[in-house]
């Protein structure tokens, strides 16, 4: 009896001892061994591309879970029938599908990122060898809005244009592999590591764009382009004090959700990629340079040769064959006299003029982080011929991007400092700002006094000159019209029928909040910048200032106390 009890006790003690040995003494060794065993799987989590927001947190680009369809050819029973159903459900070519289904591959994609309807239809058919895989697809909920700026991504989620391309490194999605304990049936038991986005690489991106201002610019630009049956239109809206881009509008527009249905030409962001001869909107640069250099004052008179001035064997005249005699610098800008601008530039001198053009940022890239940014065209000073100074003074023989032009005007508007334009406001994660992109001053271009003098001159343009249609009741507006003849490469001459109509300006003039350029390419019927482009400028200013809570002097304002 004692023997039996002893045996049982011994058994119990040995059991406990073994348990203690396994659980305590060999704990670490066995745990390490166990982690190497196949029942520890890897949970692959795809962290999608970062979201792109506007400055107010509205989503402009995000991700959508969709399914892709692939086949395992060896598992397909009836190849012809399967191919037929696949081709019809997914809108694919039967021959291509049949070729994939009949191949010797282990795996063949039939359609990546198919639509929900297609997947539902196909799942109902329950075909053997046809499988589905969840993937993330880039989705642009606001469709055309700012599409030329935001860009788009390819099938493999790689940024191919716009912000999506330049910020690929920050936005890119990634697969995160996390060890997980699984049971014999492959069911997940517990995660063996923590998955936190905070220690991973990708970010969300907040842009400086404002959805409302962007929409306003696109809407009114589109209306005007349609009204004048123009080839295209562009508008840039910038905060002249910080260099933040509020809107970059391109017309015609495209839908980035179906980007391959549009031509590469339509998908271009012409505000930074293309350069144009600015025409008369360049005259404020000449005036600012002359004032800052001290060679002229706003009321100094210049003789405008009664409408005909011969330079380098070529006669230069005025728009609409005006014949101006003596005009002050202010009047030259207000009436947009070509000969007056030449006279100011001549007094300034080639070297000084060239230096100011460079200081205003022309002939170099703007440093904005967008793909394909052009530096424009500015001939080197040593290559200027006898007509170059004259031509450039009224905006020919120089090509600028719309953004360069707005940046230069912003320097005139903000007291004389050239600001670096930027489109990204902050890098974010989980709704928190990780890195803010601060405004950057490039250099001082003109003095504050010159800036104030230019404001008066540009206000005069809107009040008494070619820019009257840009006047806004209750706000002071400073601006300049431009009607540039298009250069025809084939004939190597300026067209008499095709123009680029522009208006550039800022408001409110004494405390600028917005610097805006509107350009309309080849309008039909009317072509004057003051007629075609200025009304778009007015609409953008009115709506945007209201959106920014800047009230006009003519407005009724009530202040209600919440208490």
């Amino acid at each position: 009896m004692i023997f039996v009890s002893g045996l049982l006790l011994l058994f119990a003690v040995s059991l406990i001892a073994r348990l203690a040995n396994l659980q305590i003494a060999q704990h670490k060794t066995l745990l390490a061994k166990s982690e190497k065993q196949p029942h520890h799987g890897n949970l692959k989590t795809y962290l999608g591309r970062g979201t792109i927001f506007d400055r107010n947190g509205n989503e402009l680009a995000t991700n959508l879970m969709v399914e892709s369809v692939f086949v395992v050819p060896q598992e397909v029973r009836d190849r012809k029938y399967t191919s037929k159903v696949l081709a019809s459900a997914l809108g694919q070519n039967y021959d291509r599908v049949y070729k994939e289904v009949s191949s010797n591959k282990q795996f063949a994609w039939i359609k990546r990122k198919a639509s929900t309807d297609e997947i539902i239809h196909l799942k109902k058919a329950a075909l053997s060898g046809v499988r589905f895989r969840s993937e993330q697809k880039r989705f642009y909920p606001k469709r055309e809005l700012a599409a030329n700026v935001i860009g788009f991504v390819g099938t493999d989620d790689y940024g191919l244009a716009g912000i999506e391309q330049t910020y690929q490194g920050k936005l890119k999605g990634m697969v995160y592999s996390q060890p997980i304990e699984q049971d014999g049936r492959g069911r997940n038991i517990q995660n063996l590591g923590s998955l936190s986005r905070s220690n991973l690489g990708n970010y969300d991106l907040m842009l400086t764009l404002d959805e409302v201002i962007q929409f306003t610019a696109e809407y009114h630009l589109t209306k005007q382009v349609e009204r004048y049956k123009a080839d295209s239109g562009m508008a840039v809206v910038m905060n002249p004090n910080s260099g933040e881009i509020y809107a970059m509008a391109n017309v015609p527009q495209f839908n980035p959700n179906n980007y391959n249905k549009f031509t590469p030409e339509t998908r271009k962001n012409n505000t930074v990629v293309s350069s144009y001869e600015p025409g008369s909107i360049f005259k404020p640069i000449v005036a600012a340079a002359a004032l800052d250099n001290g060679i002229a004052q706003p009321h100094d008179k210049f003789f405008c040769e009664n409408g005909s001035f011969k330079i380098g064997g070529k006669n230069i005249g005025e728009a609409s064959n005006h014949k101006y005699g003596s005009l002050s610098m202010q009047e030259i800008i207000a009436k947009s006299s070509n000969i007056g601008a030449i006279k100011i530039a001549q007094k300034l001198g080639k070297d000084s003029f060239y230096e100011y053009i460079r200081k205003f940022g022309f002939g170099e890239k703007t440093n904005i982080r967008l793909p394909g940014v052009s530096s424009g065209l500015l001939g080197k000073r040593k290559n200027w011929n006898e007509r170059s100074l004259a031509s450039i003074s009224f905006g020919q023989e120089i090509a600028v991007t719309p953004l360069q032009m707005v940046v230069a005007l912003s320097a005139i508007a903000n007291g004389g400092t050239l600001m670096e334009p930027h489109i990204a406001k902050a890098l974010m994660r989980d709704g928190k700002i990780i890195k803010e992109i601060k405004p950057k001053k490039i250099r001082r271009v003109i003095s504050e006094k010159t800036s104030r003098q230019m404001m008066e001159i540009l206000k005069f343009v809107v009040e008494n000159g070619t820019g009257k249609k840009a006047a806004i009741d209750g706000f002071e507006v400073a601006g300049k019209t431009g009607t540039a003849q298009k250069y025809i490469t084939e004939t190597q001459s300026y067209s008499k029928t095709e123009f680029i109509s522009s208006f550039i300006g800022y408001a409110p003039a004494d405390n600028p909040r917005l610097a805006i350029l509107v350009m309309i390419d080849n309008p039909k019927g009317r072509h004057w910048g003051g007629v075609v482009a200025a009304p778009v400028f007015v609409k953008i200013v009115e709506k945007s200032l209201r959106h920014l809570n800047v009230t006009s002097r003519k407005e009724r304002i009530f202040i209600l106390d919440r208490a």
Partner: protein
Amino acid sequence: MFEKSRRLIRGRFHIAQKDFQMIFLASVLVMLAALALVWPNVRKVKLSYDYQALIAEREKLSNENHLLRLERESLQSLYRIQQLAKNEVGMIEPTKGQVTTIFLK
């Protein structure tokens, strides 16, 4: 049943009642100790399954939430709202005299 088994064991192994009680007590203690050791693990695995199910549920709800948010963003498209306001509701832009600005302090 228990009494029957007890009698059978005592008869078969000729164990005194006191000894039998001791052995029984020792066995129960060993079993309880073993259970105490194993039970937390069993419980842990059970809770892990529940936790994984909750993670899957959260993932599903989070996807649903994301889709609804996307739908809301799409519906809030200013192009769409303007079209609806103009064409379906018949709204028009106010003229300058009709606009009053109210700031809340």
